[in-house]
């Protein structure tokens, strides 16, 4: 029986097959994991608080991100922005939603639009969206007095689920005994 010899590499040409294998696997991975051209409206500049506990939201298509920052460092007036549909163009864009502290503010109207549909009325002609959720992405330095009007707006719009966006932290290792 003759001996089998591994053929010499094609002189001057490295074998690229393993490279292509790895690169193809990476491409498939990125295509599955990456969200391209999808914006949730979350403002990455906001420094959110951190927490150890937390969960994921399964249906991100039914979520409205509210970016909440105080008007100034010690202000109790919040500035709320969100990616909402422009009534004239029909496109979704980051918009500041005015808060007048009552049930008729622009923020309440926007939340009602997503919660109850075009008629803004519970049980109206448009179908209600019971699974609609709000994500509050708030500045960690903001005072509660600035957050309160946003929670009130969610209450006025009868939003059932409010989620607080936090940064994941791993549990700190216990301190060594002296």
């Amino acid at each position, binding site marked *: 029986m003759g001996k089998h010899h591994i053929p*010499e590499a*094609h*002189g*001057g*040409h490295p074998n*690229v097959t393993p*490279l*292509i294998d790895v*690169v*193809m696997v*990476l*491409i498939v991975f*990125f*295509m599955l*994991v*990456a*969200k*391209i*051209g*999808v*914006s949730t409206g979350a403002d990455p500049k906001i420094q*959110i*608080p*951190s*927490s*150890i*506990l*937390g*969960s*994921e*939201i399964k249906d991100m298509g039914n979520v409205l991100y509210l970016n909440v920052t105080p008007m100034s460092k010690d202000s*109790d007036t919040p500035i709320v922005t969100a990616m909402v549909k422009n009534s004239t163009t029909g496109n979704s864009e980051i918009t500041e939603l005015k808060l007048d502290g009552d*049930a008729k503010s622009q923020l309440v109207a926007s939340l009602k639009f997503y919660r109850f549909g075009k008629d803004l009325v519970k049980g109206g002609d448009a179908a209600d969206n019971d699974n609609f959720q709000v*994500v509050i992405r*708030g*500045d*960690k*330095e*903001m*005072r*509660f*007095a600035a*957050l*309160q009007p946003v*929670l*009130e707006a*969610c*209450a*006025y719009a*009868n*939003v*059932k*689920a*409010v*989620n*607080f*966006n*936090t*940064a*994941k932290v791993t549990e700190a290792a216990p301190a060594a005994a002296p």
Partner: protein
Amino acid sequence: MKMKGAKAVHYESGPNMTPLVDVVMVILIFLMLAGQFGGAEHFLASNIPLSKGGVGPDNSPASIDEPIEIRVDSPSPDRFTARAGVINATDGPTLTKGLTRLRAVMAEQLKAKGKSASDIQVKISPGRNVKFEHVIAVFEAANAASFEKIGFTKAR
């Protein structure tokens, strides 16, 4: 002078892979740069963001079964104190321990009444100056103590 054997080792064994590798690399780099990944973020969920008599309109649907009020104050900008009955905590882990014990005691009492511990509603009552990160720390502690209904009251 003619070099002998210079071409002897090169023989065709398949298609030219160079253009394929070029294109694939471009796609890979595009996906790496353009993609948005989940990142290190998650969410603390509240199914009762409002509590009756607290934040929100008076006709809020939240129940007021077996309430526990956690009063949160901020003696200095970097610290907070949380008080609920005999519990007096200045950090999340201590508050979690206290709330876990309180929940166990209340669960026993409610069991005797034929009620469930899931009826307990935690009302977080922060002062106006309490920072959002401290409110979240208290919220997380209540979550860690396995309370299911956690809401907020108006700022004091």
